[in-house]
């Protein structure tokens, strides 16, 4: 169950794909209707990663590669460890005293939990956006400028702020009121501000933990459009309970389930299936994935 789901790129070895163009009626495989979702480069490599809170396991034996400039979705029922897993990726679990991470987590080939790694630097390179927008009680401008100032980033601060707000797809809505308090913005605007704040420190990866669950459909649509634009430059990992959102925006999807001990005292998350999103939502390999995405089990 918890075996590695990392797989070799199949692009050049798949006879169906190779013959598909010249003989389209011979064999059309549903998952091969476009370019392969995954890029060649890994941004993260997880090898038998487990997280415990005290003696209680939260996730066990997670092995997967997360690809560069892809959107990777983590889906699964409540309590399966999606948020725990995503928080491992920028060492947010370090802030929980009882949390313990075992196994290997490589970031661009380097051990993210190595002794010489600075967690603050990690969180600069691997930013995070949370379920509930959490702007600082400051002006829109200062929300964006906060990170670059702390980090002592060089350059014209006005330009840094404008660039981040433009990339966050919110510049046009706030350019005339940069000194207004961020709390006066709508929920959707606040969330895009938080994404812009994350971008302002020029990260490599953006982690999103249910970023749209508190937003209306229009704001959700804007965030999803923004994600599609951002993946040109960033790798994105998103936790979502919205199955259709995972299907719409992500390139790769990992499905996690809750495992229980026989006495049901302990529960933890394990990965069931990790594949191209198109495959997960049209022809999943595991019946448990099938039952979850079709809603046969909750």
């Amino acid at each position, binding site marked *: 169950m918890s075996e590695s789901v990392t797989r070799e790129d199949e692009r050049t070895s798949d006879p169906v794909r190779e013959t598909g163009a010249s003989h389209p009626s011979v064999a059309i495989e549903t998952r091969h209707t476009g370019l392969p979702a995954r890029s060649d480069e890994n941004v993260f490599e997880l090898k038998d990663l487990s997280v415990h809170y005290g003696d209680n396991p939260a996730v066990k034996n997670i092995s997967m590669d997360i690809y560069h400039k892809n959107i990777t979705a983590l889906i699964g029922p409540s309590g399966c460890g999606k948020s725990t897993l995503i928080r491992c990726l920028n060492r947010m679990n370090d802030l929980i005293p009882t949390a313990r991470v075992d196994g290997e987590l490589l970031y661009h080939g380097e051990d993210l939990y190595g002794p010489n790694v600075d967690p603050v630097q990690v969180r600069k390179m691997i930013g995070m956006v949370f379920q509930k927008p959490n702007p600082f009680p400051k002006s829109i401008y200062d929300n964006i400028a906060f990170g670059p100032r702390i980090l002592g980033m060089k350059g014209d601060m006005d330009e840094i702020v404008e660039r981040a707000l433009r990339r966050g797809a919110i510049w046009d809505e706030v350019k005339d009121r940069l000194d207004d308090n961020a709390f006066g913005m709508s929920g959707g605007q606040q969330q895009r501000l938080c994404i812009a704040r994350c971008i302002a420190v020029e990260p490599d990866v953006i982690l999103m933990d249910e970023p749209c669950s508190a937003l209306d459909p229009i704001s959700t649509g804007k965030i999803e459009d923004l994600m599609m634009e951002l993946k040109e430059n960033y790798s994105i990992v998103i936790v979502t309970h919205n199955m259709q959102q995972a299907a719409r925006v992500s390139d790769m999807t990992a499905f996690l389930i809750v495992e229980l001990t026989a006495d049901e005292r302990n529960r933890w998350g394990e990965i069931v299936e990790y594949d191209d999103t198109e495959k997960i939502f*049209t022809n999943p390999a595991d019946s448990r994935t099938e039952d979850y995405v079709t809603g046969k089990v909750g």
Partner: protein
Amino acid sequence: MAAQGTRRAYQEELEKLEVRALEGLDLVVEAIERASEAVQHSDVELAELVIASDDVIDGRYLEVHQSILTLLATQAPVASDLRLISALLHVMKCLERMGDQCVNIAKMIPIAGHEPPADERMLTDIVTMTGAVRDLVRQAKKAFESRDVGLARDLVRQDDIVDNLNRECFRRAIQIGDSEDRREWAMTMMLIARAIERIGDNAVDVGEQVAFLVTGLFREFEDASHPGEDLASQSG
């Protein structure tokens, strides 16, 4: 699959949709049997009934199509549910075409006239073809209901019998003689044979949807552009 756990109403709706769609194949079987009898006995009134009854098949097509649109819009089906809906869309298109072919057959009957058949053997072959395609449609339905890919692939073998009889009809039509009346009768019978042969192909198409539904792969069992390739026996 029996509804269980969550989304029970949706699963029941999906199951009902499949039943309504596949019942459409029963309507086609009925139309084929009537058309066959009308050809055999030059029964113009029965032929008119076949033409009128096509509205029932068209109505079923529209009903299932609308239900599919509603399910797509409201339930966002994925995985095997999505494949089922995609397969049912194809099946409905096939059965609507099969109904139209029965109408095409029925329209030929007044043209063929009431005279005794110019070639008794040709008529016998055509009646045999109608029986064969009726069995094909029944088998396609059974394969879909039971998700039986082997039974679906077997449709190709049965369809070959229909194709061979169609070629035999063509051969006999060429040799029918110089009489204008006999040639006109033979031409009419050829159009009927062609319509029956197309029904067989549509039944095979339904079988291909069974394979897609079960495996997630779409493969034509037989490829007209690459004859001779035995795709039906390939795995997948």
